């Protein structure tokens, strides 16, 4: 098993765990954390892809690495927005859930 395959498998596991959490957990905060787990998995996959696609003599393909940085920023902004909304919801109602169907 090469290094890239190991990373690929890890990222698949992270995405799987995250998807499970996002779909199964009713609490928004856990859903936000699960979203970040999936994000971690996807970014790790970017890394594995970069390693696998590197030309001979190079450490890695630079394009996925550039994409990861942008992706991290976007995921960070998304998490910040979600947490801000959740906090505001908690301030307004005193609860941090989305009701019965959330």
């Amino acid at each position, binding site marked *: 098993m090469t290094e890239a395959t190991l990373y690929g498998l890890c990222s698949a596991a992270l995405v799987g765990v995250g998807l499970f959490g996002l779909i199964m957990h009713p609490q928004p905060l856990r859903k936000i954390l699960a979203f970040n787990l999936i994000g971690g998995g996807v970014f790790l996959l970017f890394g594995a892809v970069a390693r696998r696609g590197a030309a001979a003599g190079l450490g890695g393909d630079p394009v996925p690495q550039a994409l990861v940085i942008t992706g991290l920023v976007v995921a960070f902004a998304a998490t910040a927005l*979600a947490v801000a909304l959740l906090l505001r919801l908690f301030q307004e109602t005193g609860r941090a859930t989305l009701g019965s169907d959330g």
Partner: protein
Amino acid sequence: MPSSATAGGFLLVLAIVLPVAGALLSLALGGRYAERIAFIVMPAGLAVSIAILVSVWRTHNALQYFVGNWYPPLGVAFRADGLSAAMMVTAALLICGIGLFAREQFFAQPGPEQRAPLVFWILLLAVWASLNAVFIGSDLFNLYVALELLTFAAVPLVSLDGRAETLAAALRYLLFALFGSILYLLGAVLLYGAYGTLDITLLSGRVRAEPIAWTAISVMTAGLLAKAALYPLHLWLPPAHAGAPAPASAILSGLVVKAPFFLVVRLWFDVMPRLPEHAAAQVLGTLGAMAIIFGSIVALRQERLKLLIAYSTVAQIGYLFLIFPLAVNPETSHSSSTVTWTGGILQAVSHAFAKAAMFMAAGLIAEALGHDRIAGLAGIGRALPITVFAFGLGGLSLMGLPPSGGFVAKAMLLTGAVAAGQWWWAVIILTGGLLAGGYIFLVLARTLADASEPLALLSSISLGRQTVVVALALCAVLLGFVPLRPLELLQIGRPDVAIGAVR
């Protein structure tokens, strides 16, 4: 691949930069200026998108621009084909209409700066910029960023008034959207890993029918369906769209849900023209059919006008996804699948105008009455005849009655269904039309009834706002008079593959 930027490519940059600059400037200068800046950017942006449309129409070729003169696969390309140009003009017209409508609702009053007006105008421009970025993006990762920007601009629009239930609706919307975008990104990585590029034009030449491509397209499609609120991933839509202020609902229902649909179309027909499986397309069509039936029936049972309109959006989105089983079919001819495809796009455009007009009409009615309970609408037809007329015109297009854009769109879908020998979709389309007729009639009958006691309006509604609503509803109707030739526009610049005769 075509490797040079076309003349007029700078228009594509302007289409994104203008609203972004407006939004940033509004943020820097503060609330009093936000509205003025928006009213400078709106005509300019409309002019830019019309210029793009004219240029695409006259040259019969897609407009292209390469950022920093770096060509794909390293660089990022912007590309406007006929479809992008049509969607951009639709977005520009709607944004201008919504801006005119929102002027009285979100003007900055003298005194301490208020948040809602400032935020509304900034978000309006931000939604516009990200929509344009989605429509002209030619790089799957760039499109991911554009989609996320669209989400970040759309979610706060839901909770502009800061009530607890709209906050919950916004949070639910955001969670669905995040689920969608991360799946989309996952698919994009898989494609990059397999084919070494994210550029749509390059990918369409490299993608082969193999497991990794199927995985990528299914993951991306599933993510986009969550954002487009296709049944059964529609749960977030009704509370979000019904809870937002009327101009915001019009943007969300008319434009924002069309962006992920647009990307699904790009993926299925432009990125992987040789790939789509007939069976997978049938699944999309079945979900669309269930959306039509379920959305319409639930809409019939609503007691509040805005919720009724929101559920009708769920149903109308279903029609958009009927194009997949009809156009992605090895047995149908190229021409008939083009008819279906064009019908689907026309449905997206006419629904955008009709639904925006209906949401704004509902907003005016709610403002005048202080509530939007359907049971209490009696007499409003006499008090606000122009608004109710606009609501009816929008309804005409939703039902698919002639003359309206919705009629032409649904007629094209019906033609496609018959030509493809898949009559069951035709039954769904007609049933959906009947059900839509039911819920529109339910509302109109109430509004036209005589009130038992004289109606006391809470506030008078200015003629200007009512005119804007009628104008948008008329756009939806006028689309029915567009002769078929301009519809060829939609085919300009699309990859030269017979979309029906794939595989």
